[in-house]
């Protein structure tokens, strides 16, 4: 069985009248890459802030590593980056990382290794305040990786970066994910989540709209693109299929949606048995973006 890293149960946070997080429940298992999706102000950062001990919860429970240790001790085994990189501007990159080592109670041996990973070795003695935003963000990732964390939490890691910066950060995230580190990535950038995550949680106004695998979410709206000698015959035939949800025709292609899981082979056989030969059959998935927009409408 996969071991649970973080479990959140019915978490609530109110800021006065504003109910920022409503009954959010979540289980994070070892080895998966999770995405938290949601528009700005949907409670992503608040939820992460609560489990990271910087925001006080109003009600609900959360526990790290099965509740065997106190939150601040558990956080020593977690790497996290929240919104913007926070370091001491007057210290160099190396000194900042050494300070984090002191806080986490580990020796300095990893500092150089992690600076290599994020490509900041040549700037290790420069003061943090001289760094560009991209470099600051990479230093933050190095800092989060210092203790070889069980889980890496990233909140909007590519916010405000230029395309190269975004690319560099994504490469680093993919590298880390490939090494089997559990990742929790909060973002409003959908392609980012679609590319790297296996599981996704969609939030809006502090409420969970969807929680499950990315495939599960995109499969939900799977549809087929078909074409035959006579599209009108094909449409008449499909209308008699018991599971068809809706049919439409665009640019000479018949688009058909089913209301339950349908296999391409099954569909092909069904149509062939009824005497029509298809010359075009493509199974298409709704992009995460379309699905997300549909969910949060």
């Amino acid at each position, binding site marked *: 069985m996969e071991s649970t890293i973080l479990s959140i149960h019915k978490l609530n946070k109110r800021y006065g009248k504003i109910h920022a997080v409503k009954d959010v429940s979540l289980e994070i298992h070892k080895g998966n890459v999770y995405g938290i999706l949601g528009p700005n102000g949907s409670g992503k950062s608040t939820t992460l802030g609560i489990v*990271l*001990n910087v*925001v006080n919860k109003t009600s609900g429970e959360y526990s790290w590593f099965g509740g065997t240790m106190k939150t601040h001790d*558990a956080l020593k085994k977690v790497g996290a980056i929240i919104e*913007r990189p*926070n*370091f*001491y501007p007057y210290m160099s990159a190396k000194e900042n990382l050494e300070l984090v080592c002191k*806080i986490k*109670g580990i020796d300095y041996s990893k500092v150089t290794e992690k600076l290599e990973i994020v490509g900041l070795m040549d700037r290790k003695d420069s003061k943090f305040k001289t760094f560009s935003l991209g470099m600051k963000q990479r230093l933050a990732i190095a800092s989060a990786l210092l203790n070889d964390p069980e889980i890496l939490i990233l909140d909007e890691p590519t916010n405000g970066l230029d395309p190269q910066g975004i690319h560099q950060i994504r490469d680093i995230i993919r590298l880390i994910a490939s090494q089997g580190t559990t990742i929790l990535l909060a973002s409003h950038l959908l392609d980012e989540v679609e590319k790297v995550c296996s599981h996704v949680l969609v939030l809006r106004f502090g409420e969970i709209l969807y929680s499950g695998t990315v495939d599960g979410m995109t499969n939900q709206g799977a549809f087929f693109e078909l074409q035959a000698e006579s599209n009108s015959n094909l449409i008449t035939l499909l209308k008699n299929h018991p599971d068809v949800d809706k049919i439409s025709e665009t640019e000479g292609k018949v688009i058909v949606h089913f209301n339950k899981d349908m296999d391409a082979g099954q569909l092909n056989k069904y149509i062939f048995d009824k005497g029509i030969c298809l010359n075009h059959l493509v199974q298409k998935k709704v992009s995460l973006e379309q699905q997300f927009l549909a969910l949060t409408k």
Partner: protein
Amino acid sequence: MKRLLAIELQKIWKNRASRILTISYFVILSFIALIASVKLEIGYFKLHFAEMGIFNFPFIWHFNTYIAALLKFFLAIVIVSMMANEYSYGTLKQNLIDGMSKQEFVLSKFLTVILFAFTSTLFVFAMSLVLGYSFSSYTELGIVFSDLEYLLAYFVKLVGFFSFCLFLGVLIKRSAFAIGFLFVWFLIEKISFGYLKYEVFNKSPKVDDFYAYMPLESISNLIVEPFTRLNVIKNIQTAVGESNVKDYSIHFSSILIVLAWTAIFIFLSYKIIKKRDL
């Protein structure tokens, strides 16, 4: 404990402004020794501090701790900014995320306060010993090491004052405003004291008793000014017919009051950090 101090000292020492202020503090503290060399001669009036007996044991403990305490503002700035910076850099949040507990965070600041106060006390002790042996008329061990409670009072005074600064840093989050508030608070205590004592309660000593419990007043009450204790000044006072029955000793009760305030300030700092969403 060593870990927490190491974390805090790195934060302070790597900051150029804090480093310079800390060094200047100890350099200026050692300037007290220069008072010894002050020789003023205006016509027939001769003023030579070292010969007035200010460096006599055990009076020197009183004199030096009083003068040294005036310089505490240097370190107060370091302490207020070490706290306020954590807010403005967002590093308080980051420290917590990295696995420091809120309790450890406050404790690391408090340990630094104690370390500063202790180092300063040790410094004043060593310096007074040297000055005393150079200028004192009495150097018998029994006399040299009497009245050492002034050093204890000095230590408690610094711890209390720095804890107040730390608390203001936590509460107000901005160094400049926190130091400004410290000054405003000082005025509030002084003005309300003067008003109540001379306008409302007709010079009743009860007002003094009450104000002995106020934070800054209790801190300043720890070590009473030493000047009127000097023979020279006493002679002048007798000459103009003023009788002086001031009590210059250190009172256990005042130490207790300041320690109570210290506990309150540190506890409130912890409560604020615990309650605040960062």
